[in-house]
């Protein structure tokens, strides 16, 4: 897929993930860009975060992304035509203390990439709410739960294991309020 100034964040994120896959690099989309994917672009982040699985040489990553037009600048990759940038935060892929994350395949415009599942994207934002009391993150978790079918029981169990059952109940009230 050719990226341009009109490419949406979900389109860019999935195109990048698919490009990395073609180069044998396993990278999982996380964070706000994942929320954007699961809310049909209703939330727009400025960047797309990927957590790389396994060992990858910097040159190989640079080369794969250069084919899409991304150039490494410091810790991020920028594109002359695309307003979103890419970052690769350190792994492991985890949500809170949960390391047993099974990425999902997400397809947009013929590209297929790995991303957190909708349930895990929801948990990912809730983790930020739990840890930082960030109300925006709570609203993003609610938005994912509104747009997608998520496993509320799994989220409840995880919230309890993180010691945040009260916060989960607040999340659930918000989800039901917005139904």
């Amino acid at each position, binding site marked *: 897929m050719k990226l341009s100034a009109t490419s949406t964040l979900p389109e860019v994120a999935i195109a990048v993930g698919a490009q990395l896959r073609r180069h044998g690099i396993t990278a999982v989309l996380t964070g706000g860009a994942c929320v954007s994917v699961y809310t049909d672009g209703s939330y727009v982040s400025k960047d797309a975060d990927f957590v790389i699985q396994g060992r990858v040489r910097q040159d190989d990553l640079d080369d794969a992304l250069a084919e899409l037009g991304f150039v490494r600048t410091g810790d991020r990759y920028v594109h002359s035509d695309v307003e979103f940038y890419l970052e690769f935060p*350190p792994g492991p892929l985890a949500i*809170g*203390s949960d390391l047993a994350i099974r990425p999902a395949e997400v397809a947009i415009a013929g590209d297929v990439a790995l991303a957190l599942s909708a349930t895990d994207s929801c948990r990912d934002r809730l983790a930020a709410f739990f*840890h930082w009391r960030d109300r925006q993150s709570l609203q993003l978790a609610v938005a994912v739960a509104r747009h997608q079918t998520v496993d509320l029981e799994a989220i409840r169990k995880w919230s309890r294991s993180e010691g945040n059952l009260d916060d989960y109940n607040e999340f659930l009230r918000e989800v039901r309020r917005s139904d």
Partner: protein
Amino acid sequence: MLVKNMSSPFGGLARTRVLVGLRLLESSFPRELSRVLAVPVSAVSRALAGLERDALVAGRLVGRTRVYTLNPGYFARPELSAYLLRLAEADAELRARTAQLRRRPRRTGKPL
């Protein structure tokens, strides 16, 4: 240059001391850490930047100051926290310095 008198399992003495200091103080900023750890503020800032890239610490702006804590989202946060506390037990001087730091509120206008 000081003789190395404690282990630095996190890659460098400044990185290790910053982490131990943050564990004891819960949250802090570069100048305060520099004073408490007796490490130049430039070294503290460098250590914090590296630790933030490694997701071990997280910083956020409070007013105009960037305040750091151990990253609550780090997957091994409880284990890291316990390990740093154990390292702190071996550093009596650092514990004494952090204990001298006043953190409780002081009423506005009350003389220092």
